[in-house]
């Protein structure tokens, strides 16, 4: 299965930040379509394009900040308490994100509210801290987090756009279809999230298989 690919767990070799660390998160090791990580927010918040984008950006910010801090402190944190330390660091940045979003817009906070705190348990962030940031330099960790964060946001947006389009007949709240369009309510419901995710995974895997053959 694609999810078992180990290539995303970068070796400690090489210390200069390389663009490859950035690129891999976008496509080859996309956190959603290839690694299938962080499924809870992917399925829950991707019912509109706007929510998906905001959730993706919030997650990317937390990922970036926690990767920076974890890689900075990687020689200071003893192995036995590393997971507890990572959770503490991640939770801190999630709380900060929560306050910042409240300060930016009450409406945005209203629509994301319940899911902001759930970023703490997003396994994508913990897996990048454990598998990458704890073994690599700050520079490489930043590249990794930026790539993974953008890849995650992109994937969430792919799902959100499709689900909003068919479930609500809109994109970013703007009507696309004529008035007599009958919405597919199932697309907004959790089941629609699974269907859409399956669809995108199919597209990705077919594309990968074609590339491998060529």
């Amino acid at each position, binding site marked *: 299965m694609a999810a078992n690919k180990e290539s995303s767990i970068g070796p400690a070799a090489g210390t200069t930040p390389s663009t490859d660390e950035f690129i891999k998160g976008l496509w080859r090791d996309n956190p959603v379509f290839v690694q299938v990580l962080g499924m809870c927010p992917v399925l829950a918040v991707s019912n509109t394009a706007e929510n998906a984008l905001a959730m993706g950006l919030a997650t990317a910010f937390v990922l970036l900040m926690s990767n920076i801090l974890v890689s900075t402190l990687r020689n200071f*944190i003893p192995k036995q308490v590393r997971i507890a*330390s990572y959770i503490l660091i991640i939770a801190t940045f999630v709380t*900060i994100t929560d*306050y910042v979003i409240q*300060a930016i817009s009450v409406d945005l906070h209203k629509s994301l509210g319940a899911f902001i705190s759930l970023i703490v348990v997003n396994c994508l962030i913990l897996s990048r801290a454990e598998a990458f940031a704890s073994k690599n330099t700050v520079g490489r960790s930043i590249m990794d987090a930026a790539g993974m964060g953008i890849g995650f946001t992109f994937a969430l947006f792919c799902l959100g756009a499709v689900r909003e389009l068919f479930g609500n007949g809109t994109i970013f709240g703007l009507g696309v279809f004529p008035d007599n369009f009958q919405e597919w309510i199932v697309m907004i*419901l959790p089941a629609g999230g699974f269907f859409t995710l399956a669809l995108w995974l199919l597209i990705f895997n077919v594309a990968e298989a074609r590339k491998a053959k060529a």
Partner: protein
Amino acid sequence: MSTTAPIQPVAQTSSAKMLQAMVGIGIMCALLIVLTFEGTLPRIERNKAEALEKAIFKVVPGITSKQTFALSSDNQFSLVPDDSDANQLVYAGYDADDKLVGLAIEASGMGFADVIRILYGYDVEGEKIIGFYVLESKETPGLGDKIEKDPSFLANFEALDVSLTDDKRTVENKIVPVKHGNKENPWEVDGITGATISSRAIGNILGESTGSWAPKLAMNQKVFATKQPQKSERDGSE
């Protein structure tokens, strides 16, 4: 199936070092959170006050200014500054001629996911609810949050009956939620299919809230009837 790598023995680390690391990170994180909290607090409070102000003008349609009143323990209302932190506040909305249009009242109760905070507009003279707005909810996006958007649900609150009995002490018919499509009486809240629990919660919150507020407001109707002059410059200037 992939084989699991043998667990590598971890080099012994002294407890003191572990404690040092955890406490160190803890203190650093606490500091970061406190700094962000302090830094964003004024903006968050301003945003919340603005949102409440906007909501008041939304639930009591057609008003140009408002005044805040607080309920004291002996069931008397008195004018208080807008930023008062008293518990039981009502917001009186006035039109351009300083005549009372309606009162905005905050209420809250348990929804599906968490406590829902709402604001509703109440017409004291007509004894009915004239507006409704969700201030804070964590209801499921796409389902429970229809209580904020669904047009046929919001139509419930254009004129929801809260008639009082003749002695003005109790509400004649408590507001109750009903299943979608079963609304027969003007005091019933027509629910939403697919958001049953959230829409029922709204009906129950309104029932509880109007049950305790409406008689008190009716008794003190004179207090709000016209805008009180002494603070008129302050209000509506923001």
